[in-house]
């Protein structure tokens, strides 16, 4: 580990390989790591990815762009209703989608990051979510055993970050970024604002630098891009990294 984890975008993304499982923070555009996703779009040889993420972005912006480019084999997710293309890709057989209740997805990633094998949740009992899962009764209540998820790489976005990878988020952009930052072998954080060591309040840090391997500067344009009125999908010329 280096003391200063700040790295140029393309060097940071050179860690990625085809076939990897990638955990991604964000919630339908809020806190989505768009700089890193846009960087991934340009890596022409990257494919067969499995994505762990709450959703695929918003309309045509976010992880759905990787799916459109045929880079994704499978999504482990909770909601794809904001990205109509995902259902299309699924129906055509190009994409496998595994739906999890959102709280279950969070717990499974937390287990993966926190050394736990799984959790017992009442959520999903009596629904299709229970298919293939072990049911365990504790004190007369039936729970599903939901097992840990762990990724090769996680990508997250924060509002502030320091050289060591300490992160702070802003408003509802915190969401899944904190848990995704814990559940991978290698974690890349993009930060909208970069600070020197000691500039962030030790009491207010929301992801500790111990979890972060690489810090990349966000493209500041994304920080003000409105997810409620997302940019139109434009198929930019793909440049191989």
């Amino acid at each position, binding site marked *: 580990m280096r003391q200063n984890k700040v790295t140029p975008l393309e060097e940071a993304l050179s860690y990625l390989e085809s076939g990897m499982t990638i955990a991604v923070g964000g*919630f*339908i*555009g*809020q*806190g989505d790591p768009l700089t890193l996703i846009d960087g991934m779009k340009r890596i022409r040889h990257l494919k067969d990815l499995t994505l762990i993420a*709450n*959703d695929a972005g*918003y309309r045509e912006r976010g992880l759905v762009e990787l799916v459109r480019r045929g880079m994704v084999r499978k999504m482990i*997710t*909770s*909601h*794809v*209703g*904001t990205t109509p293309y*995902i*259902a299309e890709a*699924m129906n055509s057989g190009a994409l496998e*989608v595994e*739906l999890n*209740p*959102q*709280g*279950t997805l*969070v*717990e499974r990633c*937390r287990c993966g990051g926190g050394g736990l094998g799984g959790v017992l*949740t*009442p*959520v*999903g*009992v*009596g*629904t*299709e*979510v229970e298919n293939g899962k072990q049911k365990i009764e504790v004190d007369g209540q039936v729970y599903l055993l939901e097992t840990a998820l762990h990724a090769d790489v996680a990508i997250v976005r924060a*509002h502030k970050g320091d050289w060591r990878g300490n992160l702070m*988020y*802003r*408003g*509802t*952009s*915190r*969401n*899944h*970024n*904190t*848990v995704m930052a814990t559940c991978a072998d290698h974690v890349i954080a993009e930060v909208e604002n970069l600070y020197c060591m000691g500039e962030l309040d030790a009491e207010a840090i*929301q992801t500790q630098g111990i979890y972060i391997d690489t810090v990349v500067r966000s493209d500041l344009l994304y*920080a*003000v*891009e*409105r*997810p*409620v009125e997302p940019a139109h999908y434009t198929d930019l010329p793909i440049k191989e990294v």
Partner: protein
Amino acid sequence: MASNKETIARRAALELHDGMYVNLGIGLPTLIANFMPRDVYVVLQTENGALHLGPRPDPGCEDVDRANAGNDPITLLPGGSYFDSMTSFCMIRGGHLDATFLGCFQVDGEGSIASYMIPGARLAGMGGAMDLVVGAKHVFILTEHVAKDGTSKLMKRCTFPLTAADQVDVIITERSVFRRDKGQPFVLTEVATGYSLDDIAACTDMAYTVADDVKLEAFGR
């Protein structure tokens, strides 16, 4: 005359009592905020990580990092807070919310709902709905009484994949209010202006009983 959705939201708002912590689902339930009585103090949660939502920001003052689970811009009232999804879903599953109001595709007489996919037609995903329905102390389902093709949305048994089984406490439509205790059948407690008990029976497929003190012309229009 009010739209069906407005009638439902207006009636649902009457279920809010002082001091409740409440999550309003995407779509129709969000409208409830417009009809909350001014003198009732209710704390609204959104599952993507905020508590104590205030009114929608003024046009042009929306902030990219302040939005609800439907991606609508929000403000926070004094005493509000932001938190991550780990915290949010412990709050939801752990029974810390007094109520959740949700829409659905189908609801049935066993207190089950279907809201996250229509096989062969629509794939949305359950998002936080399964957690909300299992975790909140009281589950209110808001739905139009009949589908566009005229069939009842209050069914004997849901035919789409379930969001949760046996969790619904109250159903509010533009025509009626049904309540139940867990494991029991629904009881018709209110009928809206313009409908008779027979009208409700004709457009309701699920089994239910009629309360002794059922209120006619209870709300609507």
